[in-house]
Every structure is written in structure tokens, then in C-alpha cells.
């Protein structure tokens, strides 16, 4: 088995996380924001897996299962919200829903 150095795994996770975060922060289309969040989840999952393989523990994979479930739940709620948003505003631009400003 070819072992990948743990630093490589973590670096990839970091890059993926930052890309996802950037997407969340700058995209205005709410679908893309949700997708960027999926990338962040997966980056975190990758970090767990990497950690788990480094210490030869199953905990990392258990946590990844948890993250996966969370992501599924999030998408379900998120997409439902997107549909409602679209029905109400006829757009998926996230800046339209800024009624809660102080």
C-alpha cells in the first residue's frame, strides 16, 4: 500500500476548505453557495480521514459518516429554502434577502 504523507492530505483539505469558503463568501447565486458549502464539508471530511489513517484509528471514518449525514440533512433543508426563496422573490440572488439588517 502506498502511503500518502499526512501533510499532503491535510494540505489538500486546507486548499479545498479555502476554495469552499471563498465560494460561500463571494458567490451570489444561492445554489453555488450551497455547493461551496458541500466542498467545505468534504474538506473537513478529508481532514478527518487523513487523521484517522495517520493514527490508524476508526474515529476519523466515524466522524466522516457523521459529516456525510449532516451534509445530507443540510442539503435537504437548504434546497427546500431555495425553492421557497425562488417562489417568493423569483430569483436565487442571495443579496435580495437582506431584510434582517439592523
Amino acid at each position, binding site marked *: 500500500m502506498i502511503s500518502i504523507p499526512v501533510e499532503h492530505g491535510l494540505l489538500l483539505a486546507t486548499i479545498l476548505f479555502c476554495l469552499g*469558503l471563498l465560494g*460561500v*463568501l*463571494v458567490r451570489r447565486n444561492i445554489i453555488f*453557495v450551497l455547493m461551496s458549502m458541500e466542498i467545505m464539508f468534504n474538506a473537513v471530511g478529508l481532514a478527518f480521514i487523513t487523521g484517522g489513517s495517520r493514527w490508524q484509528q476508526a474515529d476519523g471514518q466515524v466522524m466522516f459518516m457523521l459529516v456525510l449525514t449532516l451534509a445530507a440533512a443540510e442539503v435537504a433543508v437548504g434546497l427546500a429554502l431555495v425553492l421557497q426563496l425562488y417562489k417568493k422573490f423569483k430569483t436565487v440572488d*442571495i*443579496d435580495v*434577502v*437582506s*431584510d*434582517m*439588517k*439592523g
Partner: protein
Amino acid sequence: MLNLLWLVPTFPLAGFLLLALCGLPKRLAAWVGVGSVGIAALLTLGIAVEFLGMPASEQVFRQTLWQWMSSGDFTATFALYLDPLALVMMCIITGIGFLIHLYSVGYMDEDPAFSRFFAYMNLFVAAMLVLVLGDNLVLLYLGWEGVGLCSYLLIGFWYDSPENGYAARKAFIVTRIGDTSMAIGLFLLFMHLGTLDIQQLMQSAGDNWAQGSLLPTLAAALLLGGALGKSAQLPLQTWLPDAMAGPTPISALIHAATMVTAGVYLIARTHELFMLAPEVLFVVAVIGVLTLLISGFTALVQTDIKRILAFSTMSQLGYMFLALGVGAWSAAIFHLMTHAFFKALLFLASGAVIICMHHEQDIFKMGGLRKRLPVSFWSFVIGGLALAALPLTSGYYSKHEILGATHVFARSGDTLWAVAVLGALITGIYTSRLIFVVFFGADKTHADESSIGLNIKLPLIILCVLSLFGGLIHVPLDRVFPLQQVLPHLAGTANALTIAAPFVGILIAYLFFYGKPELSEKVAANSLGKMLQRFWFSGWGFDWLYQKLLVNPLMWLVRANKKDVVDSFYHLIAWLIRLLHRLLSMSQTGRVQWYAAGIALGVVVIVGLGVWRQHLWF
């Protein structure tokens, strides 16, 4: 009978409660108001007869009603103490008080606040009785403040007009200055002697303190402050003339016969303490002399009938202070009593004149009332004679005692005597000026006595008798003032001068205001006369001085601090918080991405801080 002593202040107090709490109809209110004081007067009479029947050495009675307060070493009982001094005061308060209540029924007849008036009057009598019967200084102070309160309420009785309210506040605040000094005096006495029971206090002051040392001097001076305020002596005298804004019976009862003499009573009651402070006692004499002279001159030029009497009251109180100052305690109390008779008479008579003149008080708008108002006229003549201290009237005996004691006083007694005799001369002038201007001369009005009834005339007649013959009453005060020297009788030139002074005064007044009125006009017309008149009319400019010296700076401070300097600090805090609030709410944009950016930045900062601190400390 003596055991009923507690009922004497209780009846007026019950009268007050009844009148204040139940809205009684007018006729019933009069019965309750006058009746309660009448019963107190009858009880006092019974007590006096029994008390004076006892042998002189046993003439002390103490009645403890209940424990009032107790805290640590300090206890104050609600106890009454009766000795000849308290008895004399009690007789004056209930006796004269009853006559004035009776008179008030007629005087206040048409007033809509009839029962409120009697409620206050009854409360006053109760408080004054507590003052003179109090066994300890705390109880005395309770009565002292009680009469001050009633004085305030009654001066401002006709509160519709702002001047009356102003006069009431002035009286309250000026006397409060003295009361504060007195309260500090009480604290000092308790701190050093550990008791406020008057008899114990006097005993232990004599045992612990040397004559003329600092502590008794300080304590006596502080108590004197209270007495000066209450008795309207220099420099706290300015409230009394303005206090005449109240109804005339009030001026008679509170501001002539009883309350203003409380200062004299206080000094007489604590005379052992004052004897330990000869310096203070001398100051008492000097203040008395100055006040009697200054207010005598002021009374010379007043035009308001009640203000003349007010200044003359101050002047007579000056005589009492002089008597206290030279150690003639019993003479002071004697003069207090006779003064209560004739000054109450004069005030009530002036009240009768005021009613008949339909509330006109300017003496120069009266004139020739001698035939029109015979009862008032004769009351005024008799009261005036006693006030001027012509021989055989009551005022003569008491004033003569005072002047005699002053003449032999070791410390510049002859100067004090000379000034006091000059004061007696001036008393003669202003008293007869008042009578000549009001009752003689040209007939200017159509007044008559049809509007005054028997309840006004009867008190006047009784007081006339007392003013004439009250000097024959022997006041058995020798045991109260055991240290007092036998009062000497004046002899030779001094005696002649003392007796002659009021006659000369009356002669001068006769010349100026009856015989040759053009003479007084001539004096008033020249520039010096005008200036003096204006100066005296204003009460020697004391009001002006206090206005400039005390009131104006205080008002300036108040205005400067109108926005409340202290509050500005708290306003600053509120302003800062509001600023922060505005900044925070600005960050609330409603854009989710900004919030996410904030969270990301926060995480970076926190993680960065953690890493950095690890490098720093570990």
C-alpha cells in the same frame, strides 16, 4: 390632679386629630377647637392650684408616659417634667391660647377654611406644651420643631397669594438655620455627657465642666443659635415681620405670646449650662440690647399696624434676652409672661381694628377711630401703656426688674442699661405714635364695631385686666433659679431715668404726631430724615444684606448648576453606549455573506492568537 398632667397636651392633640381627620361642620369645629384648649386650660388651672399648694421644696413633678426610643447608650423617654418654670409657661400657653382661640371663632368666622385653622392652632398648642413640659432635650426638640411646623402652616394659611407662601418659607428656613445649630448642640451634649435628660444634663455639666472652658461655651453657643432663630433675635430676626402675613390671631398666639418666647424658655431651662459659659451669656445680653434698639428704631417708621407690633415684639424679646444675659432669669420669665398678656392684647385689638377697617392695615389710612371703635381703642391704650411700661401696669414691673438687674451687672452694666433705657424711650414713642395716628386726628373712615361680637370683645377685656394687673402675679421661680442673685431695686437718678424714659417717649410722640404733625413732616422731608426713614423702614437693610450675601450667591450656584454638573458624567456613559450600539447595529447588514466572512475572520484571528501565544509563552 397632678397625675392628669399628660391630659393637658393630649386634649389639644386630640382636637387636632378630630378636626384634621373628620370634616366637622363649622359650629362643631369651633366647639372642638376652642373646647380642647379650654379643657387644657381648666386642667392647667387645677394642676397649678394643687402644685402651688405643695411646699416649695417639693415643687417638682415628673410623669413618665412611655419609653420613646432606645439605642445603645441612648434612651429618650416620653416624660413630662413640671416645675414652676414649666407651670408658668403652661399657664400662658393654655390660658392665653384659650382666649385667642375664643377670639378666632369671631375673627375667622367668614373664612372657608375654618376647621383647618383650628386644626393647626390645636396642633400648635399641643406641640408648644410638649416643648415646655419635655423632660429631656429630645422631647423639647420635638415640640420645638412641631411649633416651627405649625408656624409655617399658619403663616401660609392663606396660601392663595404667593407672598404668604414666601413669608412662610422664609420663616421656616431662617428658623431652620437656628434649629440646625441647636441639633448640633444636642449631639455635642450627648457625646460628652452621655444623657439628654435636662436635669441630669445640668447636673453633670456642672460636675464635669469648668466654668468658661471650651466645651460648655461651644454647647451654649450652639443652643443659643437655636434660641436666636426661634425668638427672632439678631442676626436671625428677619423672618418675624414677614410672618405677619398670617391671620392676626396667629400673630398674637405664635408670633407674640408663645412660640417666639421658646428661645427665652430654652435658655432659662438650661441656664446652668449657660452659667458655665459667661462669654456666651454676655453675648446673649449684647444681642438682646442690639435687637431691642434696632427693632425699636424700625418700629418707629413702619406704616403697617401689624409690622409695628412685630418689631415691637422683637424689641421686647430683646429685653428678655438682656435679662437672661445679665443673669436675671426670673425677670426674663416675668417679662415673658407680662409681654404675653399685653402683646396678645395689642395684636387682638389690632385684629379687631383690621376687621372693622375691612382688612386695611395701613395706619395712615386710619385715624380718628377713638370714638368709632371704643373697645379697640381702650384695649390699645391699656396694651400700649403696659408695653411702654408706665408705672402700675404689668409691663412696668417686669421691665423695671430687668433694667434694675442690668444696671448693677458687673460687666459694662451701665452701658447696657443706658441702651435699654433708650430702648424704653423709643418704645414709648412708637407705641404712642401708633395710638395717636390710628385713634386720634382727623376722622378718615366710616368704620364701626358692629361687626365684632362678644367672642372678640371678651378676650380683649380679660387681657386688658391681665395687662393692667398681671404685674402683681408672683411667679414662684426662686427654686428653679437657685443661683440667681436677689434682684436689686434701682435707686436715685437711675431709677428716675428708668421711670421717666417712657413718659419722655410719649411726650415726644404727642408733640410729633398729635400736637404739631407738621413737625414730623418737616423731619421726614429733609434729606437725612428721608434716608434714615428709608433705612429704618427696611429693617436696617438686613433683608437687603442677606439677599446680596446669601440668597443671590446661592441662586447663582443653583442657576449655574441647573443642568446638573454631576449628571454630565452619567450622560457621557449613556452617550458612549449609544454610540457603540449604533456601530454594532451598522454591522447588522442582513447580508449572510458578510456574517460568514465575519465568522471566518474571527476564527482566523482566534486561531492566530492561539498560535502566537503558544510561541510567546511556551
